[in-house]
């Protein structure tokens, strides 16, 4: 049964979304348990797939429809996407638990069935994009994940439909650029399978059409990954989305985009092509550096807590970009480890902000005085995640930034190293400003004057702070056991040719 896990992790949530939608129309209450059961099953499949890869020691191949690769579609689970898959499965399950009370609050009852069906389809698209070994299949799964994201964001309040529409224009532009890139690769090589392309492409590295196709692939993936110059769709759409949706999308979608970029740069194309022959990673590095500085400063300027986090997402993607740009084992280890850490960090942060908005009824960073008294758990999780984003030792953020720094030093990219340190400093200013206002400023009148008299302060539900605590625990655990993760999994996750 274990050999079917790579296919099951995508097909089971797909089938479950049909049941959730069909039964949800009749019996609304069946949606949440079905969704939770599916995401729990996906966690089991993800863990099983990673375990199969670790015990086998080499990538696991799964031929869909029993057709061998270049003709049929192939799923490949290796150390790299096994780890990312496991992190995605954990965070999707936590986002599912978290969404119980949030959806009751934000989504009208008649729309629960389609909402949960799209929630699970979004998870399907993410898992599929991580596992697939076929370029066109990745495009189709990218579209499933994107359509669910557009619709879920469109459910938000205020200007959410407008933000979703602008995200759709940008996202479709990116997906079409990706499709055009796959078309360029197909017209030159005739194959769609990643491993097959790796064999056919080397003699063609000089042809200009290939370089243009490579550029389209990078631009398309960059849009989906919210890389610096093409990230403008992210702050509006994730801020206005319902909080259960931004908790699902923020940690996962952009990191899967980063994984796809690593897959294209170093698995489909030879690392020597991406780093030396065509200075693609150098250019990406300099853009990422500009992105880190620009977005860290913009994050400082935001009053709205959620919008501040959105700019943080783009900064973290910038760190991953710098990791890729180093072009050596250390830098890439740091980039992959940072993808996994960032999935958990952003999940914790967005869950905390969602709970604060729901119970403290504010998102303004200046009105958080006395939060620790009313919501001790949420503020505790916010502190742990903040420290991890800054990069303070016990948390996992420190270790991934440590490898990134080592990578930049080894690659003698002193500017990259400087910007990494400066970025951490800017994040430190950002978070300590919030911590200071949360814990140390005591203005009881500010608290009462804003609160309407007579509204009781209902406690955060268990289904809200349980996932938060689990995420914070994961952040600490990843930090403590980073050495085993790096030597056990990441050492083998680096594509050959480095």
């Amino acid at each position, binding site marked *: 049964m274990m050999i*079917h896990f790579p*296919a099951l992790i995508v*097909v089971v949530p*797909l*089938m479950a979304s*049909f*049941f959730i*939608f*069909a039964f949800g*129309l009749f019996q609304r209450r069946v949606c949440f348990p079905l969704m939770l059961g599916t995401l729990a099953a996906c966690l089991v499949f993800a863990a099983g797939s990673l375990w199969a890869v670790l015990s086998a020691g080499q990538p696991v191949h*799964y*031929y*869909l*429809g*029993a057709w061998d690769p270049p003709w049929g579609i192939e799923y490949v689970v290796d150390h790299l996407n096994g780890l990312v898959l496991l992190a995605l499965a954990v965070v999707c399950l936590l986002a599912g638990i978290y969404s119980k009370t949030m959806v009751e609050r934000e989504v009208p009852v008649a729309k629960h069935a389609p909402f949960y069906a799209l929630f699970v389809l979004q998870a399907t698209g993410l898992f599929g994009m991580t596992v697939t070994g076929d370029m066109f299949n990745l495009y189709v799964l990218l579209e499933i994940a994107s359509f669910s994201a557009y619709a879920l964001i469109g459910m938000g309040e205020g200007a959410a439909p407008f933000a979703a529409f602008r995200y759709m224009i940008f996202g479709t532009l990116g997906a079409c650029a990706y499709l055009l890139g796959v078309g360029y690769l197909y017209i030159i090589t005739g194959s769609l399978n990643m491993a097959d392309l790796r064999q056919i492409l080397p003699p063609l590295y000089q042809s200009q059409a290939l370089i243009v196709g490579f550029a389209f692939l990078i631009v398309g993936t960059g849009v989906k990954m919210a890389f610096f110059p093409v990230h403008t769709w992210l702050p509006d759409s994730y801020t206005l989305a319902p909080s259960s949706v931004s908790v699902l999308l923020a940690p996962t979608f952009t990191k899967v985009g980063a994984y796809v970029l690593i897959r294209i740069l170093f698995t489909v194309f030879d690392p020597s092509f991406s780093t030396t022959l065509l200075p693609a990673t150098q250019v990406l590095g300099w853009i990422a550096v500009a992105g880190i500085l620009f977005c860290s400063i913009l994050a400082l300027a935001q009053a709205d807590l959620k919008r501040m986090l959105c700019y943080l997402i783009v900064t973290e993607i910038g760190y991953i970009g710098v990791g890729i740009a180093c072009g050596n084992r250390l830098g890439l280890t740091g980039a992959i480890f940072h993808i996994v850490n960032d999935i958990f960090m952003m999940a914790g942060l967005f869950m905390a902000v969602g709970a604060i908005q729901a119970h403290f009824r504010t998102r303004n960073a200046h009105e958080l005085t006395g939060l620790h008294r009313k919501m001790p758990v949420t503020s505790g999780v916010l502190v742990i995640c903040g420290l991890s984003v800054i990069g303070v030792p016990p948390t996992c953020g420190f270790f991934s930034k440590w490898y990134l720094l080592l990578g930049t030093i080894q690659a003698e990219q002193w500017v990259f190293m400087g910007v990494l340190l400066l970025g951490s400093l800017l994040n430190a200013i950002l978070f300590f400003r919030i911590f200071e206002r949360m814990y140390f400023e005591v203005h009881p009148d500010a608290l009462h004057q804003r609160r309407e008299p007579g509204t009781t302060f209902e406690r955060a539900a268990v289904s809200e702070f349980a996932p938060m605590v689990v995420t914070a625990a994961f952040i600490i655990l990843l930090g403590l056991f980073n050495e085993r993760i790096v030597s056990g999994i990441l050492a083998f996750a680096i594509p050959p040719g480095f």
Partner: protein
Amino acid sequence: MVKDLEDVVIRTASRILIPFIQIYSLYVFVHGHGSPGGGFQGGCIMAASFILMAVAFNLNMAERRLKERTNAIFCALGVFIYAGTGYLSFLYSGNFLDYGQLSHLLPTDPIKARYYGMAMIELGVQITVMAVMVSIFLDLVTAGKHEKTPEEDGND
């Protein structure tokens, strides 16, 4: 006066045409293996017949023929048939979507089983595409105000 005359011509013409459109759609669907056709094209033609019904008559007619809830169930049913056929090969420890394993189920050799597997797939695609096209059309046209009968809305 002119408005009614116009309706009469369109209504009688479409009353005659709609059944043949649906038969043609089944023809295209069934001949997916031997000639250009298949689930998608057949589903679209079937959806066109329902949309013609909604345009020529009024939304109530289309609503009566294909109620909103059954349409939603058809959406899920078609894709369920598709994925279900894929799951069948798990029973015989084949990979996902491996129709060769259907030969244990159907009294044929593995190669002919692939022929029947594809027919099942096309059926699933036909149902889903038909249901979704009609559902998207009805949603966009009424902008979500299904419950109000067209008379209140002005007979558009």
